[in-house]
């Protein structure tokens, strides 16, 4: 016997419980990524020589990955639009497309890191590289987690069930996109 959630709406706030929970998660994510980025900026300003190290990151790979994430955000919001119209199967297909975008992102990142590690730019190669791998790695982990959850949501959406989850996972995915929007200039462009 399945148990159905009773409280689906936070009456006092006039917001669905699931969506509110996602925003609470994002609050903690802001603290996590904000801490990493703030301390990176602090050290970067104090270490002008890091610009020399940053010059070895691959701008084109970073730019391509930004394009991939922006495009995956588009498919995520179109999935929400489809869910809003009650078209679960279409929402599921668009979510799968979003997952594909996440996969491309991780593949590009894998090749990028491989090249850098081969050339000696490892986690211990300097302060910049420590931040580079920590921030980008933490972000990549969030991309991976989003992909797994999104596949699960797509599976239920395909059957026209729990369509509100399409929006919830979309909000999370857009946040991951925004984090990358800031990581890209910080790690790749600022030389």
């Amino acid at each position, binding site marked *: 016997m399945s148990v159905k959630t009773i409280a*689906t709406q936070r009456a006092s*706030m*006039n*917001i669905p419980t699931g969506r*509110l929970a996602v*925003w609470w998660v*994002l*609050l*903690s994510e*802001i*603290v996590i990524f*904000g801490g990493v*980025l*703030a*301390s990176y*900026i*602090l050290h970067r*300003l*104090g*270490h*002008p*020589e890091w610009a*020399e*190290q*940053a*010059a*070895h990151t691959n701008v084109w790979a970073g730019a391509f990955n930004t*394009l991939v994430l*922006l495009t995956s*955000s*588009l498919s*995520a*919001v*179109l999935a*929400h639009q489809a869910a*809003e*119209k*009650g078209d679960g199967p279409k929402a599921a297909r668009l979510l799968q497309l979003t997952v594909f975008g996440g996969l491309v992102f991780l593949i590009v990142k894998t090749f990028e890191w491989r090249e850098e*590690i081969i*050339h*000696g*730019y*490892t986690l211990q*190669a*300097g*302060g*910049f590289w*420590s931040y580079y791998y920590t921030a980008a790695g933490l972000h990549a982990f969030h991309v991976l987690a989003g992909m797994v959850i999104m596949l699960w949501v797509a599976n239920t959406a395909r059957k026209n069930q729990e*369509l*509100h989850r*399409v929006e919830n996972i979309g909000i999370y995915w*857009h946040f991951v*996109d*925004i984090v990358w*929007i800031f990581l*890209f*200039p910080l790690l790749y*462009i*600022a*030389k």
Partner: protein
Amino acid sequence: MSAHSAHGHAPGAHAGVAPHGPHRNYVKIWAILVALLVISVVGPMTGIRVVMLTTAFGIALVKAYMVAKNFMHLDIEKPIVHWLLIVGLALMVLLYGALAPDIQKGEGQYWKKDENFHKSFTPEKPHTGGGQAQPAGGSGAGTPEHGHP
């Protein structure tokens, strides 16, 4: 009906899925974001520091705002959500402010750093793995000794 009240309660919404509020052309928004991305990549190529900072970080702020507003629908989201985000960002600023004196200031009675502090962020020895040049800044020679005579 206000934008806020429309979010999540408009007739015709399926299974609790929140409607998007005002009509948005998502493909057009995406195209603008891509155009901004191109500018943020090309801008720094000019080599002018002001242009680089403006195009890279200024555009990043614009892009983040556009994604938050149009894709996350933050413009029609409930006030509690705005407060949550403000708290998160305030904590980030607080962290920066609390750490800045220690990391960025190297002078004063309690701010003297160990002489190896900055060197610890830049390895002394070249790190070779694939035969290419050492990681930039590997010598540590250019490491500024903030606050040290």
